């Protein structure tokens, strides 16, 4: 369990760092897909297998492919998509901001008492229970999400096809 956590955490951090540091955009997208899969593994470690499956299906299967399509449609086809888009001044400022954020968060986390025993030890969450609470108390939220997804779909289609109306 401990070994699995450290390996998955290392892969996640590696994927995220490569995603922001690589120059080639397609390589960056593939390393963020690696990050998503490591995160799915962490969700399985935390006994949320339904969320792990949804993570793989939605993030790797849909959002990743969306990003790859957007890269395809916004660069020249056989050109080299490496963009050296790294503003010098911004880089140091961003690193300082990130270091400050970490310096703020990490002591905050480590000074509070941490839970070691998971209360899930004698309860196996099943997908059926998730379905039941989606239907009974939280039906309105599901309806709102459905409306949001429909509106987002229509808006994306309209936004991406705006050139044909000119």
């Amino acid at each position: 369990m401990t070994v699995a956590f450290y390996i998955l955490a290392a892969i996640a951090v590696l994927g995220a760092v490569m995603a922001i540091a690589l120059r080639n955009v397609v390589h960056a997208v593939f390393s963020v897909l690696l990050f998503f899969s490591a995160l799915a593994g962490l969700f399985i470690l935390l006994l949320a297998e339904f969320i792990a499956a949804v993570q793989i299906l939605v993030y790797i299967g849909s959002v990743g492919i969306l990003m790859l399509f957007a890269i395809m449609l916004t660069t020249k086809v056989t050109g080299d998509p490496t963009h050296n888009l790294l503003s010098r001044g911004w880089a140091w400022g961003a690193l300082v901001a990130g270091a400050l954020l970490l310096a703020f968060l990490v002591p905050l986390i480590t000074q509070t008492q941490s839970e070691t025993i998971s209360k899930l030890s004698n309860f196996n969450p099943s997908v059926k229970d998730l379905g039941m609470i989606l239907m009974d108390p939280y039906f309105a939220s599901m309806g709102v999400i459905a409306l949001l997804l429909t509106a987002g779909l229509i808006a994306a289609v309209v936004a991406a096809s705006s050139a044909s109306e000119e």
Partner: protein
Amino acid sequence: MEITLNHYLILSAVLFTIGLIGALMRRHIIIMLICLEIMLNAANLNLIAFWHYGPNPIMLHGPLFTLFTIAIAATEAALGLALVLAIYRHFKTVDLEQVQDLKE
């Protein structure tokens, strides 16, 4: 050594910071969207970790909230990428520092 809640929280904080650095540092639109997704995923990890180690995991609030977050993040990524296409059509570049003109 047992994996406690703090391990997951520190990992989530580190991932969020990496996403934040990337969003501030890069100029390519699609890399900024990627960093946005990294930040949202770090928040999801936080939610599930708190559900797992929390006082009442039977209520399944963690996965429920995460499901909604994943759905909203996917919608936002789709809309963002559609806007990227529209921006590329008009400005012919994906460099965000060149996107400076307002509509004439």
